[in-house]
């Protein structure tokens, strides 16, 4: 009885230890990988642009830029006061009306306690010639107040503009300038829902990029599989210089993709590229320049470079799988009179199935996510003919600084990758994750 209890305790403490050991790694993964993906999705729901100050962060609600407001309103107010003191009749009346309108909206803004507090803080900071921080100066306000504010300012600016044209103002430029300055102080929410997805799916560029990615993935992975399998079968024997061949195989895999892409760019060069010249000499292409300047040529070029870089890796994975097949099976088969081809179809392929699927899974995902190779080699050109979806997403995010739309594209890449993984894992069954410790 006692022993059982202590056994239970031991199990519990082992479980606790297990969770404790796994926790740091899982928290890190959650923080640096899972959260960002969720955030990407969140970003994709907003009109989020880094180069536009009113859209450079995410706003679910209306907010007021108190710094901008307080740099304009008090001065406008005092300028109006001066104008009123010297004006007569109708002009005076209109100006007083404008001033009142502005004062009313100012009061309305300050009727909120939180806003009033911040209002004071920002005002003090500005009086001390300090620049208030973003957290202090941006304050959320009600939609109703924001709309009223915008309407009032628009009206006031219009009225003042008319007065300026009529020559009724003494400090016309200053007053209209200040009124204009108030215009951009309300930040509207930039939530757009699924608009980016809708826009993307109706945009030919996305479909072209998806098509390019698919062509690149399917052709390069298929060629790599066939070549890799052939190489693996051929070198699956004892021979002199195995180590050297294995090292040769590993080098293309090990060098940075960006560096190998640049290397191929040199070899493909339309004027000085040796590979371009040889391809032209054997009639594979018409002119040397065709490789990087025509659409088909460029796609061929990136696929060829990818095949060069990753076929050896594929061969290696398949070779490892081949070596687990017991040779006794082949011996038995040849005694039964099976031909080499029959042995390949009946023994090698079925037993290699899970190795092939795992290799295909890794390679398909890598190819689908391709970025550095194509970005460095062709930049997605010519005429976007090698632009894959990752490159498109990157360009939208960092060249057009349109984070919202770019994030939507990134999420689309993510979903495609998830679908591909699910298909492969279904095919593989639970093999991949099986707890082989239990065997």
């Amino acid at each position, binding site marked *: 009885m006692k022993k059982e209890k202590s056994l239970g305790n031991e199990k519990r403490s082992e479980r606790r230890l297990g969770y404790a050991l796994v926790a740091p790694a899982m928290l890190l993964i959650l923080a*640096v990988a899972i959260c960002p993906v969720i955030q990407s999705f969140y970003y994709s729901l907003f009109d989020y642009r880094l180069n536009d100050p009113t859209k450079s962060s995410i706003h679910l609600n209306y907010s007021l830029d108190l710094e901008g407001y307080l740099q304009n309103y008090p001065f406008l107010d005092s300028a109006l006061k001066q104008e009123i003191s010297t004006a007569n009749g109708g002009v005076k009346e209109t100006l007083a009306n404008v001033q009142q309108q502005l004062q009313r909206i100012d009061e309305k803004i300050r009727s909120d306690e939180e806003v009033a507090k911040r209002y004071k803080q920002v005002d003090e900071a500005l009086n001390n010639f300090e620049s208030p921080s973003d957290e202090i100066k941006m304050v959320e306000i009600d939609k109703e107040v924001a709309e009223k504010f915008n309407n009032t300012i628009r009206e006031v600016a219009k009225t003042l503009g008319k007065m300026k044209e009529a020559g009724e103002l003494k400090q016309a430029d200053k007053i209209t300038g200040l009124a204009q300055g108030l215009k951009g102080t309300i930040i509207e929410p930039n939530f757009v829902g699924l608009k980016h997805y809708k826009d993307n799916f109706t945009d030919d560029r996305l479909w072209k990029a998806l098509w390019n990615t698919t062509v690149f993935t399917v052709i390069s992975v298929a060629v790599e599989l066939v070549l890799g399998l052939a190489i693996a079968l051929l070198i699956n024997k004892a021979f002199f210089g195995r180590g050297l*061949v294995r090292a040769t195989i590993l080098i293309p895999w*090990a060098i940075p993709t*960006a560096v*190998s892409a640049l290397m191929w760019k040199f070899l493909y060069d339309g004027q*000085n590229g040796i590979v371009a010249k040889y391809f032209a000499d054997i009639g594979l292409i018409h002119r040397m320049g065709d490789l990087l300047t025509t659409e088909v040529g460029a796609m061929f070029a990136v696929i060829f470079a990818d095949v060069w870089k990753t076929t050896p890796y594929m061969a*290696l994975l398949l070779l*490892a799988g081949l070596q687990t097949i017991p040779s006794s099976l*082949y011996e038995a088969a040849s005694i039964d009179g099976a031909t080499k081809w029959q042995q390949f179809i009946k023994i090698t392929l079925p037993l290699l199935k899970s190795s092939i699927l795992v290799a295909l899974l890794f390679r398909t995902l890598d190819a689908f996510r391709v970025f550095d190779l194509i970005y460095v080699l062709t930049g997605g050109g010519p005429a976007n003919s090698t632009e894959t979806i990752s490159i498109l997403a990157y360009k939208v995010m960092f060249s057009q600084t349109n*984070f919202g739309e770019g994030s939507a594209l990134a999420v689309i890449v993510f979903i495609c990758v998830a679908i591909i993984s699910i298909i492969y894992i279904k095919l593989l069954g639970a093999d991949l994750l099986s707890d082989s410790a239990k065997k």
Partner: protein
Amino acid sequence: MQKKAGPLFYVFLAVFVFFVMFPFLWILLSSIKPLSELFGDRAFNWFTSHPTLKSYVSVFVNYPFLRYLWNSTVVATITTVYTVFVAAFAAYAIARLEFKGKAVILGIVLAVSMFPQIATISPIYMFVKKFGLTNSYLGLIIPYTTFALPLSIWLLVTFFRKIPFDLEEAAKMDGATPMQTYFKVILPLAVPGVFTTSILVFIAAWNEFLFSFTINTAEKYKTVPVGIAMFQGQYTIPWGEISAATVIVTIPLVIMVLLFQRRIVSGLTSGSVKE
């Protein structure tokens, strides 16, 4: 293993090795050509009659190449050491301890290793920007965790599983706590696996392009792949320097591959082959 290799086989092998190595060979030959032979008709001559090391000198004199090498070394080393350290505990728990949800955890690790980088880059970029980490080493080490940690865990789990379970039982009999067993029994046996994992994680971190390209844009903090890819001449692409730089980064790699090929291969294939 049973089949014997004939002469035809060696011919095939030679052709294969030649094709795989041809780009490197050409880059090597180009790196010692004088500038005038890199362009025009003479660009297609295999061997130059005027070999020169000018391009190599230029790489170090006209470009902060040494700095790139240093940056890559620092970032890749720290990333490797810290992720393998964290992963070793998690992998031990997953491989050797009994607790619920192990399969789910391993599934999450595998899923995260398949995440496309592009799907995490915008929030990570905003994060490093917010904390002023652009153009710093930490600004790369944090995002590199996204691929280095799952890779380390995945590889280490397969290595830890290969260690015989009897050893643990014996240690338990002798009254060792699980942590003692880990440090005194399992970890010493797992050193080769940890080493292999480190090599693969180091290579992955060393080769990374997208994060490095986006986050560290200042010359001073560029890593090797980005630095070389962005080599710019005044009017033309400086192919001589690019060739020389490529040769320089490939040589240590070749040495590493020659030394550790068995380990690298065992690491690469460990997740994919069922034994």
